[in-house]
Protein backbone atom coordinates (compact mmCIF):
# COMPACT_ATOMS: atom_id res chain seq x y z
CA UNK A 1 0.00 0.00 0.00
CA UNK A 2 1.08 3.57 -0.64
CA UNK A 3 0.23 6.54 1.57
CA UNK A 4 -2.18 8.93 -0.09
CA UNK A 5 -2.09 11.92 2.24
CA UNK A 6 0.30 13.78 4.48
CA UNK A 7 -0.39 12.66 8.04
CA UNK A 8 1.11 12.83 11.49
CA UNK A 9 0.70 11.20 14.91
CA UNK A 10 2.30 11.74 18.30
CA UNK A 11 3.50 14.82 20.16
CA UNK A 12 6.73 16.58 21.07
CA UNK A 13 6.21 15.70 24.76
CA UNK A 14 8.80 13.72 26.68
CA UNK A 15 8.50 9.93 26.16
CA UNK A 16 6.62 10.48 22.90
CA UNK A 17 7.57 10.63 19.25
CA UNK A 18 6.12 12.76 16.46
CA UNK A 19 5.81 10.84 13.22
CA UNK A 20 5.14 12.64 9.94
CA UNK A 21 4.29 10.72 6.79
CA UNK A 22 4.66 12.18 3.29
CA UNK A 23 3.46 10.30 0.21
CA UNK A 24 6.04 9.60 -2.47
CA UNK A 25 5.75 8.16 -5.95
CA UNK A 26 5.74 4.37 -6.28
CA UNK A 27 9.04 2.49 -6.49
CA UNK A 28 10.79 5.31 -4.59
CA UNK A 29 11.36 3.12 -1.53
CA UNK A 30 11.46 4.18 2.11
CA UNK A 31 13.17 7.34 3.25
CA UNK A 32 13.27 7.52 7.06
CA UNK A 33 14.67 10.63 8.76
CA UNK A 34 15.10 10.35 12.52
CA UNK A 35 16.07 12.92 15.11
CA UNK A 36 16.07 11.89 18.73
CA UNK A 37 17.17 12.99 22.20
CA UNK A 38 18.74 9.53 22.45
CA UNK A 39 20.10 9.42 18.90
CA UNK A 40 23.55 8.07 19.73
CA UNK A 41 22.30 5.11 21.71
CA UNK A 42 19.04 4.22 19.97
CA UNK A 43 18.95 5.46 16.37
CA UNK A 44 19.26 1.96 14.96
CA UNK A 45 16.65 0.54 17.36
CA UNK A 46 14.19 3.29 16.45
CA UNK A 47 14.76 2.70 12.74
CA UNK A 48 14.34 -1.07 13.16
CA UNK A 49 11.07 -0.54 15.03
CA UNK A 50 9.75 1.88 12.38
CA UNK A 51 10.66 -0.54 9.59
CA UNK A 52 8.98 -3.39 11.44
CA UNK A 53 5.67 -1.50 11.55
CA UNK A 54 5.98 -0.43 7.91
CA UNK A 55 6.59 -4.08 6.98
CA UNK A 56 3.54 -5.21 8.96
CA UNK A 57 1.40 -2.59 7.22
CA UNK A 58 2.97 -3.39 3.82
CA UNK A 59 4.22 0.16 3.20
CA UNK A 60 7.14 0.14 0.76
CA UNK A 61 7.20 3.68 -0.60
CA UNK A 62 7.12 6.48 1.94
CA UNK A 63 8.97 9.45 3.37
CA UNK A 64 8.75 9.21 7.17
CA UNK A 65 10.10 11.88 9.50
CA UNK A 66 10.39 10.99 13.20
CA UNK A 67 11.15 13.45 16.01
CA UNK A 68 11.74 11.34 19.10
CA UNK A 69 11.76 12.45 22.73
CA UNK A 70 12.70 9.16 24.32
CA UNK A 71 9.64 7.09 23.37
CA UNK A 72 9.50 3.42 24.32
CA UNK A 73 9.08 0.79 21.60
CA UNK A 74 5.28 0.38 22.07
CA UNK A 75 4.87 4.14 21.71
CA UNK A 76 7.01 4.30 18.56
CA UNK A 77 5.00 1.43 17.08
CA UNK A 78 1.69 3.08 18.02
CA UNK A 79 2.60 6.45 16.51
CA UNK A 80 3.89 4.96 13.26
CA UNK A 81 0.76 2.81 12.94
CA UNK A 82 -1.55 5.76 13.63
CA UNK A 83 0.28 8.02 11.16
CA UNK A 84 0.29 5.37 8.43
CA UNK A 85 -3.40 4.57 8.89
CA UNK A 86 -4.22 8.27 8.74
CA UNK A 87 -2.13 8.64 5.58
CA UNK A 88 -4.00 5.75 4.01
CA UNK A 89 -7.35 7.27 4.96
CA UNK A 90 -8.23 4.22 7.09
CA UNK A 91 -8.82 6.38 10.15
CA UNK A 92 -9.07 10.06 10.82
CA UNK A 93 -7.04 12.27 13.08
CA UNK A 94 -4.96 15.39 13.00
CA UNK A 95 -3.85 16.50 9.51
Amino acid sequence: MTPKFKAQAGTFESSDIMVLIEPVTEETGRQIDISSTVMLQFENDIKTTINQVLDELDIQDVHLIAKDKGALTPTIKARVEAAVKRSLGIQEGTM
Partner: protein
Amino acid sequence: MLYIPGNNPAMIQQSGVYGCDAVLLDLEDAVALNQKDAARILVRNMLQTVEFYDTEVCVRVNNMHTPFGLADLEEIVPLQPDNIRFPKTETVQDVKDFMKEVRRIEKKHGIKNPTMTIHVMIETAKGVANVYDIANADSRIDAITIGGQDLTADMGIVKTPDGVGIDYARKRIVMAGKAYGLDVLDTVFADVNDEEGLREETEYIKKIGFAGKALINPRQVDVVHEVFNPTENEVRKAYRVYSEFIRNKNAGIGVFAIDGKMVDAPVVQRAITVLEYANIDLKEIEKSVAS
Protein backbone atom coordinates in the same frame (compact mmCIF):
# COMPACT_ATOMS: atom_id res chain seq x y z
CA MET B 1 -8.28 4.62 40.93
CA LEU B 2 -6.03 7.04 39.05
CA TYR B 3 -7.24 8.34 35.68
CA ILE B 4 -4.51 8.32 33.01
CA PRO B 5 -5.14 10.03 29.65
CA GLY B 6 -4.99 7.34 26.98
CA ASN B 7 -2.87 9.43 24.61
CA ASN B 8 -0.13 10.22 27.12
CA PRO B 9 2.66 7.63 26.85
CA ALA B 10 4.75 9.10 29.70
CA MET B 11 1.93 8.75 32.22
CA ILE B 12 0.85 5.32 30.99
CA GLN B 13 4.34 3.83 31.16
CA GLN B 14 4.78 5.14 34.73
CA SER B 15 1.31 4.29 35.98
CA GLY B 16 2.39 1.12 37.77
CA VAL B 17 4.60 3.04 40.18
CA TYR B 18 2.21 5.71 41.47
CA GLY B 19 1.12 3.52 44.37
CA CYS B 20 -2.60 3.58 43.59
CA ASP B 21 -4.73 0.43 43.76
CA ALA B 22 -5.91 0.79 40.17
CA VAL B 23 -5.34 2.90 37.08
CA LEU B 24 -7.91 3.82 34.48
CA LEU B 25 -6.49 4.24 30.99
CA ASP B 26 -8.95 6.68 29.51
CA LEU B 27 -10.03 6.62 25.86
CA GLU B 28 -13.07 8.78 26.56
CA ASP B 29 -13.18 12.30 28.00
CA ALA B 30 -9.40 12.68 28.45
CA VAL B 31 -8.76 12.23 24.72
CA ALA B 32 -9.47 14.89 22.09
CA LEU B 33 -11.87 13.85 19.33
CA ASN B 34 -9.16 14.01 16.66
CA GLN B 35 -6.81 11.79 18.71
CA LYS B 36 -9.18 8.90 19.50
CA ASP B 37 -7.54 6.64 16.92
CA ALA B 38 -4.01 7.33 18.13
CA ALA B 39 -4.96 6.83 21.80
CA ARG B 40 -6.68 3.51 21.06
CA ILE B 41 -3.56 2.15 19.33
CA LEU B 42 -1.27 3.48 22.06
CA VAL B 43 -3.30 1.93 24.89
CA ARG B 44 -3.50 -1.37 23.01
CA ASN B 45 0.30 -1.46 22.65
CA MET B 46 0.95 -0.36 26.24
CA LEU B 47 -1.35 -3.05 27.64
CA GLN B 48 0.78 -5.64 25.87
CA THR B 49 4.17 -4.37 27.02
CA VAL B 50 4.10 -2.13 30.10
CA GLU B 51 4.58 -3.63 33.58
CA PHE B 52 1.77 -2.42 35.86
CA TYR B 53 3.00 -4.53 38.82
CA ASP B 54 0.09 -5.23 41.18
CA THR B 55 -1.91 -2.20 40.08
CA GLU B 56 -5.29 -3.18 38.67
CA VAL B 57 -5.78 -1.92 35.10
CA CYS B 58 -9.11 -0.63 33.83
CA VAL B 59 -9.74 0.84 30.37
CA ARG B 60 -12.55 3.33 29.85
CA VAL B 61 -13.86 3.02 26.32
CA ASN B 62 -16.12 5.46 24.53
CA ASN B 63 -19.86 5.02 24.70
CA MET B 64 -21.36 2.69 22.10
CA HIS B 65 -23.51 5.55 20.78
CA THR B 66 -20.37 7.35 19.58
CA PRO B 67 -18.37 6.49 16.42
CA PHE B 68 -15.49 5.30 18.66
CA GLY B 69 -17.05 2.84 21.13
CA LEU B 70 -17.09 -0.30 18.99
CA ALA B 71 -13.59 0.35 17.57
CA ASP B 72 -12.32 0.70 21.17
CA LEU B 73 -13.84 -2.65 22.13
CA GLU B 74 -12.36 -4.38 19.08
CA GLU B 75 -8.85 -3.36 20.17
CA ILE B 76 -9.14 -3.64 23.95
CA VAL B 77 -11.39 -6.64 24.69
CA PRO B 78 -8.96 -9.23 23.18
CA LEU B 79 -6.31 -8.05 25.65
CA GLN B 80 -8.56 -8.66 28.69
CA PRO B 81 -7.45 -5.88 31.03
CA ASP B 82 -8.66 -6.41 34.60
CA ASN B 83 -11.75 -4.34 33.89
CA ILE B 84 -13.38 -2.31 31.17
CA ARG B 85 -15.44 0.73 32.01
CA PHE B 86 -18.63 1.55 30.18
CA PRO B 87 -19.40 5.29 30.47
CA LYS B 88 -22.76 7.07 30.52
CA THR B 89 -24.76 3.93 31.24
CA GLU B 90 -28.42 4.91 31.31
CA THR B 91 -30.48 1.75 30.87
CA VAL B 92 -30.37 -2.03 31.14
CA GLN B 93 -30.52 -2.11 27.34
CA ASP B 94 -27.26 -0.09 27.22
CA VAL B 95 -25.58 -2.81 29.28
CA LYS B 96 -27.06 -5.58 27.13
CA ASP B 97 -25.92 -3.90 23.89
CA PHE B 98 -22.44 -3.35 25.31
CA MET B 99 -22.09 -6.89 26.65
CA LYS B 100 -23.35 -8.38 23.40
CA GLU B 101 -20.40 -6.76 21.60
CA VAL B 102 -17.93 -7.71 24.36
CA ARG B 103 -19.01 -11.37 24.18
CA ARG B 104 -18.98 -11.37 20.37
CA ILE B 105 -15.39 -10.10 20.32
CA GLU B 106 -14.30 -12.57 23.01
CA LYS B 107 -15.81 -15.42 21.00
CA LYS B 108 -14.13 -14.17 17.80
CA HIS B 109 -10.75 -14.26 19.57
CA GLY B 110 -11.33 -17.67 21.16
CA ILE B 111 -11.50 -16.33 24.72
CA LYS B 112 -13.47 -19.07 26.47
CA ASN B 113 -12.93 -18.06 30.09
CA PRO B 114 -12.88 -14.25 30.12
CA THR B 115 -11.36 -12.68 33.21
CA MET B 116 -12.21 -9.07 32.46
CA THR B 117 -14.94 -7.58 34.64
CA ILE B 118 -17.20 -4.65 33.85
CA HIS B 119 -17.50 -1.27 35.55
CA VAL B 120 -20.60 0.71 34.75
CA MET B 121 -20.50 4.46 35.10
CA ILE B 122 -23.57 6.49 36.02
CA GLU B 123 -23.33 10.04 34.69
CA THR B 124 -26.86 11.17 33.87
CA ALA B 125 -30.12 11.67 35.73
CA LYS B 126 -31.62 8.82 33.69
CA GLY B 127 -28.79 6.54 34.76
CA VAL B 128 -29.36 7.45 38.41
CA ALA B 129 -33.07 6.71 38.04
CA ASN B 130 -32.33 3.26 36.56
CA VAL B 131 -29.30 2.40 38.66
CA TYR B 132 -30.82 -0.56 40.58
CA ASP B 133 -31.69 -2.36 37.34
CA ILE B 134 -28.33 -1.45 35.78
CA ALA B 135 -26.41 -2.81 38.78
CA ASN B 136 -28.09 -6.18 38.28
CA ALA B 137 -28.01 -6.20 34.48
CA ASP B 138 -25.07 -8.58 33.96
CA SER B 139 -23.15 -11.02 36.15
CA ARG B 140 -19.79 -9.63 35.00
CA ILE B 141 -20.44 -6.18 36.48
CA ASP B 142 -18.35 -5.95 39.65
CA ALA B 143 -18.21 -2.20 40.21
CA ILE B 144 -20.35 0.83 39.72
CA THR B 145 -19.15 4.39 39.70
CA ILE B 146 -20.55 7.90 39.62
CA GLY B 147 -19.32 10.51 37.15
CA GLY B 148 -19.91 13.77 39.00
CA GLN B 149 -18.80 16.19 36.30
CA ASP B 150 -21.09 14.84 33.59
CA LEU B 151 -23.92 14.27 36.04
CA THR B 152 -23.96 17.89 37.22
CA ALA B 153 -23.81 19.02 33.59
CA ASP B 154 -26.76 16.75 32.78
CA MET B 155 -28.67 18.12 35.78
CA GLY B 156 -27.91 21.69 34.74
CA ILE B 157 -26.19 22.53 38.02
CA VAL B 158 -22.69 23.48 39.10
CA LYS B 159 -20.64 20.93 41.08
CA THR B 160 -19.92 22.68 44.34
CA PRO B 161 -17.18 21.73 46.84
CA ASP B 162 -19.80 20.46 49.32
CA GLY B 163 -21.19 18.09 46.66
CA VAL B 164 -24.76 18.83 47.70
CA GLY B 165 -26.09 18.64 44.12
CA ILE B 166 -25.00 15.04 43.65
CA ASP B 167 -25.59 13.82 47.20
CA TYR B 168 -28.83 12.01 46.38
CA ALA B 169 -27.20 10.35 43.36
CA ARG B 170 -24.19 9.27 45.39
CA LYS B 171 -26.35 7.63 48.05
CA ARG B 172 -28.68 5.97 45.57
CA ILE B 173 -25.75 4.56 43.59
CA VAL B 174 -24.08 3.29 46.79
CA MET B 175 -27.28 1.54 47.85
CA ALA B 176 -27.74 -0.07 44.43
CA GLY B 177 -24.13 -1.28 44.45
CA LYS B 178 -24.44 -2.66 47.98
CA ALA B 179 -27.70 -4.40 47.09
CA TYR B 180 -25.93 -6.41 44.41
CA GLY B 181 -22.52 -6.86 46.07
CA LEU B 182 -20.62 -4.43 43.84
CA ASP B 183 -17.74 -2.12 44.67
CA VAL B 184 -18.89 1.48 44.48
CA LEU B 185 -16.38 4.13 43.42
CA ASP B 186 -16.74 7.88 43.78
CA THR B 187 -16.15 10.63 41.24
CA VAL B 188 -13.03 12.77 40.85
CA PHE B 189 -12.06 15.74 43.02
CA ALA B 190 -11.06 18.26 40.39
CA ASP B 191 -8.96 20.77 42.38
CA VAL B 192 -5.59 19.05 42.70
CA ASN B 193 -4.23 21.90 44.84
CA ASP B 194 -6.94 21.57 47.50
CA GLU B 195 -5.63 18.69 49.60
CA GLU B 196 -7.87 19.46 52.57
CA GLY B 197 -10.94 19.60 50.35
CA LEU B 198 -10.01 16.20 48.91
CA ARG B 199 -9.54 14.79 52.41
CA GLU B 200 -12.93 16.10 53.58
CA GLU B 201 -14.73 14.75 50.52
CA THR B 202 -13.00 11.36 50.83
CA GLU B 203 -13.90 11.11 54.51
CA TYR B 204 -17.52 11.84 53.60
CA ILE B 205 -17.79 9.35 50.75
CA LYS B 206 -16.15 6.67 52.92
CA LYS B 207 -18.81 7.28 55.58
CA ILE B 208 -21.68 6.83 53.13
CA GLY B 209 -20.30 3.57 51.74
CA PHE B 210 -17.99 4.15 48.78
CA ALA B 211 -15.08 1.70 48.47
CA GLY B 212 -12.75 4.08 46.64
CA LYS B 213 -12.37 7.27 44.70
CA ALA B 214 -11.34 8.36 41.21
CA LEU B 215 -8.18 10.50 41.12
CA ILE B 216 -6.80 12.77 38.44
CA ASN B 217 -3.30 13.38 39.78
CA PRO B 218 -0.75 11.10 41.49
CA ARG B 219 -0.49 13.73 44.26
CA GLN B 220 -3.99 12.71 45.38
CA VAL B 221 -3.11 9.05 45.98
CA ASP B 222 -1.66 9.38 49.49
CA VAL B 223 -4.54 11.50 50.82
CA VAL B 224 -7.15 8.97 49.71
CA HIS B 225 -5.12 6.06 51.09
CA GLU B 226 -4.72 7.84 54.43
CA VAL B 227 -8.50 8.18 54.69
CA PHE B 228 -9.37 4.66 53.54
CA ASN B 229 -6.59 2.78 55.31
CA PRO B 230 -7.68 1.75 58.81
CA THR B 231 -5.63 3.06 61.74
CA GLU B 232 -3.40 0.71 63.72
CA ASN B 233 -5.90 0.83 66.59
CA GLU B 234 -8.78 -0.11 64.27
CA VAL B 235 -6.79 -3.04 62.88
CA ARG B 236 -5.88 -4.32 66.35
CA LYS B 237 -9.52 -4.09 67.45
CA ALA B 238 -10.74 -5.85 64.28
CA TYR B 239 -8.11 -8.57 64.72
CA ARG B 240 -9.30 -9.19 68.26
CA VAL B 241 -12.98 -9.27 67.24
CA TYR B 242 -12.32 -11.74 64.42
CA SER B 243 -10.06 -13.97 66.57
CA GLU B 244 -12.72 -14.12 69.31
CA PHE B 245 -15.40 -14.76 66.70
CA ILE B 246 -13.50 -17.80 65.35
CA ARG B 247 -12.75 -19.08 68.87
CA ASN B 248 -16.44 -18.79 69.91
CA LYS B 249 -17.67 -20.17 66.61
CA ASN B 250 -15.50 -23.26 67.09
CA ALA B 251 -17.09 -23.63 70.52
CA GLY B 252 -20.57 -23.34 69.02
CA ILE B 253 -21.24 -19.84 70.39
CA GLY B 254 -22.78 -17.26 68.03
CA VAL B 255 -22.96 -14.09 70.11
CA PHE B 256 -20.35 -13.12 72.68
CA ALA B 257 -18.94 -10.06 74.44
CA ILE B 258 -15.62 -8.22 74.36
CA ASP B 259 -14.95 -5.74 77.19
CA GLY B 260 -18.63 -5.91 78.09
CA LYS B 261 -19.86 -5.07 74.58
CA MET B 262 -21.94 -7.51 72.58
CA VAL B 263 -20.34 -8.83 69.38
CA ASP B 264 -22.77 -10.17 66.80
CA ALA B 265 -22.68 -10.80 63.04
CA PRO B 266 -22.69 -7.12 61.89
CA VAL B 267 -19.80 -6.28 64.25
CA VAL B 268 -17.85 -9.25 62.89
CA GLN B 269 -18.60 -8.18 59.32
CA ARG B 270 -17.26 -4.67 60.02
CA ALA B 271 -14.11 -6.22 61.52
CA ILE B 272 -13.64 -8.34 58.39
CA THR B 273 -13.96 -5.22 56.22
CA VAL B 274 -11.25 -3.45 58.25
CA LEU B 275 -8.94 -6.47 58.02
CA GLU B 276 -9.49 -6.71 54.28
CA TYR B 277 -8.63 -3.02 53.84
CA ALA B 278 -5.45 -3.71 55.83
CA ASN B 279 -4.62 -6.66 53.53
CA ILE B 280 -4.63 -9.11 56.45
CA ASP B 281 -5.31 -12.70 55.48
CA LEU B 282 -8.31 -14.01 57.46
CA LYS B 283 -7.10 -17.57 57.03
CA GLU B 284 -3.91 -16.71 58.90
CA ILE B 285 -5.97 -15.50 61.84
CA GLU B 286 -8.05 -18.66 61.72
CA LYS B 287 -4.87 -20.78 61.74
CA SER B 288 -3.42 -18.89 64.70
CA VAL B 289 -6.65 -19.37 66.68
CA ALA B 290 -6.68 -23.08 65.90
CA SER B 291 -3.06 -23.61 66.98
